[in-house]
Every structure is written in structure tokens, then in C-alpha cells.
């Protein structure tokens, strides 16, 4: 039996008719139509489906959508303002941390959550914060570099130069 549920995604309210067993990722992708969140395994192993719930990185493929009412859900679409990218997104582009792009939305959100909590993480802190987000293309080196750079951008230590 479907039931009507209110979800707040990227600051916008959505009334969605869903079954109690529906996972958040499927509701976000199929019911709401925000396809930036990716499904790489469907059982919480790869991190591609990461969204932020009240600012905390959460695996949307093993989170029931009904459990998210009254919480602030941020998907990758909620990070940039129009064409203006979030510093983490800019850093990923600048440092060559993007290859196929499938892990990227989850990776960017996990990075943002880390930097919100810890603006100057060490390399080890970055590695541990991203250990739940798998990437097979990059070997992670440029992603780690991008997160360090994003930290500097966010704290104003360096200013992003438009190419």
C-alpha cells in the first residue's frame, strides 16, 4: 500500500506516494526525478548513492524513504546554485578528480560533509572519510588532492581563479 509522504529535498518539499519499503534512492531517482544520485551496488557497499541527511553522509540505497520525513535531504543537485559550483565541485574539476563521473556525486557529498565538520582535514582524515565511497578510475589520489584544495577554497586560504 502506497502512502503519501512529505520529503524535504534540497530545501524543496515533495509529496510522494510511496510504499513503506521504498528505498530513498529509488524515490529520489524515480519518483522525484533527481538522477544525480547513483546506484552502483544497491546494498550499501559502494557509496555512489550517498546523500546528506541533516548534513550527514547517508547511503540512500539502504535507507527507507519513510524514515526521512522531517529531515533535510541534500542530493548532488542541491549543492550548486545554478551554474555556480560549490567549492568542492570546483576543486574536483580543477584537480582532475573526475573521470567516469559515476562515483563523483557521492564522493563530492562525502567530501562536503567532511569539510563542514572539519575544515582542515589531514590526508588520513580525508582517506578515512572517503573510505566508504569506491572509485575504480582515479586511484583516489586526485580526489584526496581535490578535498585538500576544497578545504583551502572554503576557508579562503586560496581564491579560485577562473580559467
Amino acid at each position, binding site marked *: 500500500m502506497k502512502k503519501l509522504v512529505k520529503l524535504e529535498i534540497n530545501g524543496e518539499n515533495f509529496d510522494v506516494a510511496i510504499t513503506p519499503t521504498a528505498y530513498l534512492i529509488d524515490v529520489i*531517482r524515480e519518483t522525484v526525478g*533527481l*538522477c*544525480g*544520485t*547513483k*546506484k*552502483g*551496488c*544497491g*546494498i*550499501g*557497499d*559502494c557509496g*555512489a548513492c550517498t546523500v546528506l541527511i541533516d548534513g550527514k553522509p547517508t547511503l540512500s540505497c539502504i535507507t527507507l524513504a519513510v524514515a526521512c520525513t522531517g529531515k533535510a535531504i541534500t*542530493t*548532488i*543537485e542541491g*549543492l*550548486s546554485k545554478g551554474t555556480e*559550483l560549490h567549492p568542492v*565541485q*570546483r576543486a*574536483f*574539476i*580543477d584537480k*582532475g578528480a*573526475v*573521470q*567516469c*563521473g*559515476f*562515483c*563523483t*556525486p557521492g564522493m*563530492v557529498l562525502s567530501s562536503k560533509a567532511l569539510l563542514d565538520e572539519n575544515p582542515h582535514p589531514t590526508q588520513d582524515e*580525508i*582517506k*578515512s572519510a*572517503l*573510505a*566508504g*565511497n*569506491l*572509485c*575504480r*578510475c*582515479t*586511484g*583516489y*589520489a*586526485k*580526489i*584526496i588532492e581535490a578535498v585538500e584544495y576544497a578545504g583551502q577554497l572554503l576557508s579562503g586560504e586560496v581564491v579560485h581563479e577562473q*580559467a
Partner: protein
Amino acid sequence: MSRHDFDVIGKDQKRKDGPKKVKGEHEFADDIQFPMMLHGRIKRSDIGHARIISIDTSKAEALAGVKAVLVGSEAPIKYGIVPQMPTEYALAYQKVRFYGEPVAAVAAVDAETAEKALDLIEIEYEALPVYTTPEQALADGAVKIHEDNKFPGNIAYESDQNFGDVDEAFKNSHYVLGKVFKTSYVNHVFMEPHCAISKFDTNGELFIWSTTQIPHYLHNHLSKVLQMDMNKIHVKVTGVGGAFGGKGEVSNNELISALLARKAGRPVKVLYSRKDVFLQHRGRHPIEMRVKVGVDKEGMITGIDYDGTMDGGSYGGWGLVILFYTAAMLHLPYNVKNVRFNARRIYTNKPTCGAMRGLGGVQPRFALESLLDQIAIDIGMSPYELKKKNAIGFSHETVSGQVVRHSEFRKCLDQAVENSGYLEKHGNLPFGKGIGLAGGYYISGTAYTLYMAYKPHSSAMIRVDNESGVTVYCGATDIGQGSDTVLGMMAAEKFGLPFETIHVVSGDTSLAPFDLGTFASRVTVAAGSAVCKAADNVLKKLKPVAAIQLGVSPEQLEARHGKFYSVFEKSREIDFWKVVEKYIDAHGPLTATGDYTPPRRTGDFKGANIGHSPTYGFSAQCTEVEVDVETGEVRVIRVTEAGDCGQPINPVSVEGQVEGSIIMGMGQALYEELKVGKDGRLLNPSLHDYKIPTAADIPELKTTFVDSYDPESPFGAKEAGEGPIQPVIPAIFNAVYDAIGVRFTEMPITPEKVLKALDEKKKQEGIRS
């Protein structure tokens, strides 16, 4: 770059798809929806080897919401990436050959209904013996997995190649060392599962959106299996979320989506689960290799004797090609005069092995680089010295007739050794710490096409006009490695225009001219050459127009900085777009094509066509490890790499290829392995149980490019995506030997194996003392 003063080439270029990807807007196949679209799901066998007696789909068909049910007998046409040896069906026909093989498929209004319907399909099997190892499949009296297989028993293919006289060479050698090496059963683990959506239009033409490396092979296979003219089929490559060879063959879901869409009369999406990806597989062949290498007193290699048994899994796939690639990749990057190669690929009842990054090279490099390391140590020479002495020079022809027109491999060895401090560290680190050196190389495209046609391997068309700018149409496929960016950079450099102004249209069989696809590290050289030629042909049309405007000869004109100008008198210049306008006003549309076919070579032995490449990339790595003697864990601490990829077109992308290769190789060396039960089922087909490296596992990576430029390549470039994975595994194994004095010959080096080996070593030493 000292030799060439480029504006675009060799400078880090931010990819055009970057902003879309960081915003989650890059469109992957599963992001595509159509009105009335159905979801297809696949019923897989729960038996490893059997004859299909009957399939009853009536209950599934009766389920509300089910729009089509499909079985193998509805498309009993064999296909395969090697067109001369087709072995596969869209859905199992008459027999199943591995546990989890697609047997039937359902299209329904939603995925849940489709999955429910799968449970209602009843299949009766007559069980056959299940062979999960080559030994079992080769045993006397074993049932043939493929009854029409031309080779005896379950040998899918076998070959021997003999060059020089290995026995004689060994007789006269100072030292000969032989060992048995075993490689593991590993999967690509690209992050995006396979997905295809098929849709027929009112005129019966098929449109398919799929995440594939090989749109033209898919085009060809669809035509064959659906018995439709190719000109009624349109293949559109979506975003590809990684592939590494795993999307380099037509996948069952692609054919099934098209067959279901035709039957249901509605668009059908077939998305794989992660488990489906493991069952589709096409990962690296496990090979048991018996390899011997001889050297003379100076450490010069006298001969190589190789005997390899490849565990191919249930179908043909790329296997035949990989077998011959392995033969071709035994010799290099060293100068070897006597080589004997005996190998066979065996059918077993497991998911099929195929093309995985560095195919044909990774396994023999593991054996050879390990043996050379041990030989050097045994004869009291530095492995670096031995490898450097035997390394090929600037150009080389192997005993098998492969021509390497350009190599800086020696420079790679020198730089990796120098940057890592290898000579000071090797043999001198405390117990538990070690450093290992290995070299490797890879082809930059293959000279032989399986397509059985003599048409160019790559073609490109460029359209230039004042409304749309420059558009490069090319059948090459960007699978995440950034080839669209590289091809766009080449066109930008040719025209002297900013990269941002170039549009690249790729991976679409309706829009772009023919290209074989993305595999064998061929795109930069092959598609790049085609794009460069097309651009030159555009310039040939534009220069005479500019020349008349400027009153100079066309030959003295250069296109740069958005202008045509005389190289002798730079003030004689005219805006590029003004010239385009004049050309089109006078002559009409401005387009030009370019194409590329690598030089063909052959010989008078079986497989002589395969393995040749226009040019080769090289890599050397010094890898430092720490072995925890308490827990048995091996940790890679630092990898120092030096690579010869010719002129890097987009250096940041090349670094990404190198870093990704190193971490992927590290996974195979240390922990990745698919486990198979006695009944043939995969025991760990999930990313929970099949571990790949995470960010927390990565070592320090120091990668450098050696100064290199292949003058016959487009802008001097060579491959970078598969060469760097070649040395990774043996460098780790050699480092482990340096750390604890144990020569492992079987992947992966798990803590369990380390502890066992240390225990045995202790016992041995106890006996000796």
C-alpha cells in the same frame, strides 16, 4: 615540451564533461526514461552445467503487468566478439554452461513485477558435471561444454609459437630458473552496472542507448541476432561509468532489451544489479603459467619458455585474442632471441573471462618480472642492472616480428630507480620492509581487426561553419578516460582555436563515422590520427582562401591564435572565422574526413597477425611495501612510476590513468579474487565480499613522464591507460620478496599466505641452523 611549442597539447585541460559530472547531470543509461517504458529482468540458471529440458513461462505471462516473456529459442543465433568463433546466445539455448547464466527474461511495467514474474518461470534441467577448474574440464571423459567445439575436449583454443631454439639456449646458459605462477580470477568492478534501453520507432527502426565501449560491434551483433539490417539500427552510447574492458563485448542485457522491446512493442530498459555484473564478468583470465628463463654470465636473457593454461570460463569472448596477445607480450620490453610459447584456453563452467585492462600482458609480466628479479638476485646482480641490460633500445623488432618504432623504456627504468632511491634501498631495508622493481609496456591499438574488413579502423569527420563552430564527429567512445577531451584538444591545436570552441560528437553510430571502439588503448593514436587528418583536410581547403586574401602562398600559412598568418611575415594575418565565412560563401559547406589504419604486419606462424601495434607505451615502477609479520598484512607504502606515453596530450588525464592503474593492480596483487563454489556458483559476487581498494588503502604515488615523443604518432602520443598496470603486480611481489625473503608466485598475497610462508620459512631456517 621542448621539441614542440604547443598551445593546447601537453597542458592540463579541464574536461568539458567535468561540470556536468560534479553536478550529477552527466547522463548515464539508467538516467534515461521513456514514456511507457518497461523494465526487463533476467531469469538466471541455478545450476552450473545442464541441458535445458523445458521452460514453462505461462504463469509469468499470466501475471498482471507482465508485457513480454522471452526465452533462448526465440533468438537462437550465436554471436561473439570474435566473429569467426561465435559461442554465445542472448539467452541460453538448449544448454546452460554456468551458474547464473541468463535463461529467460521478462519485461513488465515495473522492476518489482518483472522480478516477481521471474520466480514464476519454471525450468527443468538435466544436470551435467560442473567443471570449475581447467584440470577438471581437461580430465579424461569430461563432457564437452561446447559440443561443436573444434578442439579436443574442453580446449577452446590452443597454440604454440617457437622462435629460435630455447632448449639449445638453456643448455648454454649460465643460469636457468623456472617457476609455476598462478593468477587470480578478478573482475573490473567499474562503478556503473550495465544498462541498456531499446526502443523501436513506428517504422520499425531500433534505437538503443547503452553503456558500451564498442558501439559498432553492438550495432553489428544486434543486426545479426535480431536479423535486422544494420541501417535500421541506431546505437547511442550514454555516459559510461567506467569499463576497463568489461563493456568491451556485447552484453546479454543489450540484446535482451532489444528482443524484449520488439516483442512487447514498448521501450524496455534492462539494468544489471551488481551481482549481474559479476555474472556477465569478462574479467581477467586466471592462468597457470610454467615459465623458465635463462641468462648468460652477464645476465643477458638467453631464452624464455612459457607454458600457460588459461581458465576461460564458459564462453569464447575475447579469449582467442587474449591468448595470442599473451604470446606477443612475452618478449617485450626486453630483447629476447629464443622464445617458446605453448598455451591453451580452457572452457570451464564459470562466468566468462575476457578483456580487462592490460589484457594479455598482466599475467606474463607478473611471471617474467618476478623471475628476472629472482635471477638477478641469485646471480648477484641488481635487478635494475639486469633489466636495463636486457631492455630494448629506442626501436626494436622482436623475434616474432613485432616492430617497436619508438621506446624510452630504458629512461623509464632509470627515472623510476633514481626517483625512488631503489639502488640504496634494495636489499638494505630492515626485515619486513622492501622495495621491488618491475617494467612493462602495452600496445597503442592493434593492427589486426576482427571485423574482417579492410576499411579504416578509425574515421572522423569535421564540420566547420560560422553558426556551430567546429564539430568533430568520431565513433570513438569516451568511457570516462577523457578521450573526447583529447580528440577536442587535437582539433583545437590543429586549428589554432581555444579548446572550449571545439565540439566532439562521439559514440553514436548514426552521427559519427565508423570506429572500432575503445579497447587495446587505441583511441589516442587511432582516432587521434583520424581527427588530425580530417583537420589537415579542412586546413587544406581553408588555406588557399586565406592565401588569396593575404596575397601569400598557402604553404607559408599557419593556423594559430584564431588566425591564419604567414610564418614569414606575421602581420599578414586574417581571422580564422573570416576565412571560414569566405570559403562557405564561395564553395558551400565545409567538411572533411580523415581516417586511420595501423600498419598491418604478419608472419608465417599461427597468430602472426595478432599483437602488432603501431606504437607502444612503457612504464617502470619501484614499489615499497611493509609486511606486518604479526598479522601477515602487506601494505604498499609508496609507488614511484616513470612512464613513456610519448607526448602526453592532457597530462592530468594521463596521471589519472597511471594512478588508477596502480591502485587497480594493487587490488589484484593483494586481495581481489572471485571465489567459486563446487557447483559453479560465485561465492562473493558483491562489493561487500569482493574487496577493491578504498581511499584508505592507497600508498603515496609519485608518477612522472619521461621525455618522449613518437614522431609518427599524432602529436607524438602513445598509450597511457594499460601500460602502467603491467609492472604493478610484479613490483609488489618483488618488494615482498625484498621485505621477507619469500617468493610468492600466486595471487593474491593474502595475510593468510604470508603467515603460512613466514611459518614455513622459520621452520626451514630452524632445520638449517
